[in-house]
């Protein structure tokens, strides 16, 4: 099979592609070859230039130098539309769909079935439902896309691109917000497309997935091509070395069991809930403890987080901090009580794109201190510099608008925003989404370290391994209700899966 792939003539051939943003050389003489029928993983650290390469290929960004040829013919697309016409379909890194349009309209934008210029709505909906059924998604395609979770939106984006792809399909971190089930579904589709001779470019930070699906790997570092290898011929540690340029003592993701039961409750919520949003729950968070929230997509994890942070106002129950009841009507209240919250939707709920990295980092701290007590410029610079170093945010320029950072680096800056407030309780919704292996290990180490210092953490992650790695306790959700809890001795991927699936989670936990 390898030989045949080798023999195939290049489908997409990129030679000497360069792109600079002002002084920053985002791509430097990059070559990249995609063959028909292969799945090609494009890997690299955060900010390595993967997304930029993709955008330059599809003409969203103008290139400075280099050539791109498709099927041996040189192409110079000047917009996404031209790339599409040429046969290159792309899912860009951030969900780039239209929340105000219906799911069906999103799927068929620009190519709706029409009769005499009038869109055949029924036909379009029927086809949309059919298309999504192929992904095991049975949703109302007439509802606005924005009413669905990020994960569903991602599936829709993928379905659209797959349906459009004529020759080449490019997927920039499509799996970041999907859970196992959806990922499997996606992989099945990808294999099917590859078998039909379509070339697929796949960007991800999950190395397991790389080895599961890809035929070939290209690695970028600091905008330069490091090398292209057959997946089967590249051991994991070598790959990491290629990506980081250094060794990474791959953290044995094993749970450190420590005694916390004696610790005082840092924050507790009793009978806390909101009608039509999430069923009332009891939740206690102790100093130095990591509580993981596990559940399927839409099970109510984000809802729990938003309620705990006051972003949604509870209509029942009470919240208390250090044993004293508190008012929790807004994020502002929560911040005053020392809570922090990294939301899952980075672009819409996290970053303020126009402001600099420095301003984004100090934002929550400043809001907490109040308007009258401004942080001096010196203090701001100092805080920003500290966290840029601590979290290795790249490029390490605090005065760069954060919107110009790569996705993973934005995520780090958001984490820095909350760490700067020295919170007592930090809620992290998918904290490692889009973060590279190096930084991933870094963040998990950081989570542990924070706990040592007495911080309480509530973490949501679709990566069960990850949850298992750092949680002291796991709360399992289903259908917008807390259905069970696993204490530290019971935590493990199988037991969590069982709890998610089982009718009576508590019983399973006991048995385990």
């Amino acid at each position: 099979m390898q030989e045949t792939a080798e023999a195939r003539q290049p489908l997409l051939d990129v030679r000497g592609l360069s792109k600079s943003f002002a002084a920053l050389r985002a791509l430097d003489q990059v070559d990249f070859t995609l063959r028909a029928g292969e799945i090609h993983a494009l890997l690299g650290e955060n900010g390595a230039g993967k997304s930029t390469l993709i955008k330059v290929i599809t003409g969203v960004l103008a290139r400075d130098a280099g050539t791109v040829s498709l099927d041996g013919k040189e192409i110079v697309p000047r917009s996404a539309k031209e790339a599409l016409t040429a046969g290159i379909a792309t899912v860009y890194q951030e969900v780039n769909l239209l929340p105000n349009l219906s799911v069906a309209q999103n799927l068929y934008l620009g190519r709706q079935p029409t009769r005499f210029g009038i869109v055949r709505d029924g036909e379009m909906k029927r086809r949309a439902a059919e298309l999504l059924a192929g992904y095991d998604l049975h949703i109302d395609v007439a509802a606005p896309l924005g009413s669905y979770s990020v994960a569903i939106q991602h599936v829709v984006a993928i379905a659209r691109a797959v349906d459009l792809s004529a020759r080449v399909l490019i997927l920039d971190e499509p799996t970041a917000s999907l859970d196992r089930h959806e990922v499997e579904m996606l992989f099945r589709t990808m294999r099917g497309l590859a078998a039909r001779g379509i070339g697929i470019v796949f960007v991800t930070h999950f190395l397991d997935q790389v080895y599961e699906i890809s035929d070939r790997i290209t690695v970028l570092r600091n905008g330069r091509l490091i090398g292209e290898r057959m997946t089967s011929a590249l051991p994991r540690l070598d790959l990491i070395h290629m990506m980081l340029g250094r060794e990474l003592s791959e953290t044995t993701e094993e749970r450190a069991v420590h005694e916390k039961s004696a610790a005082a409750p840092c924050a507790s919520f009793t009978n806390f809930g909101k009608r039509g949003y999430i069923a009332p729950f009891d939740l206690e968070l102790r100093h130095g403890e990591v509580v993981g929230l596990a559940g399927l997509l839409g099970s109510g994890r984000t809802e729990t987080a938003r309620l705990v942070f006051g972003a949604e106002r509870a209509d029942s129950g009470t919240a208390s901090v250090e044993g004293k009841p508190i008012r929790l009507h807004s994020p502002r209240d929560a911040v005053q009580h020392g809570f922090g919250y990294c939301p899952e939707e980075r672009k819409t709920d996290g970053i303020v794109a126009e402001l600099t990295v420095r301003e984004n980092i100090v934002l929550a701290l400043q809001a907490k201190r109040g308007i009258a007590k401004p942080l001096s410029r010196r203090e701001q610079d100092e805080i920003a510099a500290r966290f840029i170093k601590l979290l290795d945010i790249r490029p390490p320029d605090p005065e760069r608008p954060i919107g110009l950072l790569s996705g993973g680096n934005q995520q780090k800056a958001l984490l820095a925003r909350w760490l700067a407030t020295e919170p007592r309780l930090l809620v992290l919704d998918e904290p490692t989404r889009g973060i590279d292996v190096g930084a991933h290990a870094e963040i998990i180490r950081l989570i542990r370290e924070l706990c040592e210092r007495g911080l309480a953490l509530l973490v949501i992650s679709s990566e069960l391994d990850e949850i298992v790695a750092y949680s002291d306790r796991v709360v399992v959700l289903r259908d917008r209700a807390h259905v069970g809890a696993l204490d530290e001795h019971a935590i493990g991927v199988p037991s969590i899966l069982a709890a998610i699936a089982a009718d009576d989670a508590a019983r399973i936990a006991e048995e385990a």
Partner: protein
Amino acid sequence: MRRPSPVMITALVFVAGFVICSLQFPNFASTRVVANLLTDNAFLGVVAIGMTFVIISGGIDLSVGSVIGFSTVFVALTTEKLGLPPLLAFAILLVLCAAFGAAMGAVIHVFDMPPFIVTLAGMFLARGISFLMSTESTPITAPLYSAVSDFGIALPGGGRLTAIALIMLAVVAFGSILLHFTRFGTNVYAMGGNRTATALMGVEIGSMTVRIYMLSSVLAGLAGIVFSFYTAAGYSLSAVGVELDTIAAVVIGGTLLSGGQGTAIGTFIGVLIQGLIQTYINFDGTLSSWWTKIATGVLLFAFIALQQGMVRLAGRSRAIRAGGVT
């Protein structure tokens, strides 16, 4: 499970307002008043449909009032001074308006400039050109004009559905179809939802921008023609400030100024609500100039507050975020 749409709420608000007026004034609930409402606001309705497209796409068009003024002067001068047949004058006018709108759209897209400012410059320009053409008001005597003003479908109860009212209804119907049932319309919503994403999904936003402003200017030109039918004259100062009335009508009709949401029929009802406020004040007939302004403001507030209240009741509180910063 579906919550009542903003259009439904706007329609209910209009009906409630009409009922209140009818209870207060005996002659109010008549086909005459309803027909007058359509005739008197015909030009506003036409131009507001164009504005609906612009606002849904995330833009704004401040030039429409001036374009109406320009159109009336242009029609008057070409028919009266140059002796062109009116229909030919209309055709030339609409082509000019299309070019004007296309130019604004192109500047907005190519130079990435805010529509507010580009169309503000357009507003100065169109008004300025009408001043240069003629500062006097010119009556239009073409036979077509008297024929149009004599035309009318008599309604039971003394009302008369005039030609310009019919033009407006046709534009509303045309606008609804274009907006809700064509690819063009969907693209308009898409651009209002997220410009970048729309471009990434393969829509040519450049040509869309040009076409949207072209549509708005053409409809403003048509509104100018309607206005000239209404007054049988061309005058460079006509329709001053109409852009704000138009925007208000569109927004009252449930369209979000931030783009991406709204309906053509909602705009139509918004126009009727504006007209209803005017009619109420005229029927009252005792208000001094200043009380007229204050009453207009208070009624505007009443309608908007009623609408907001109903929206809240319909349980959309989650979608409404702190006001100015949605």
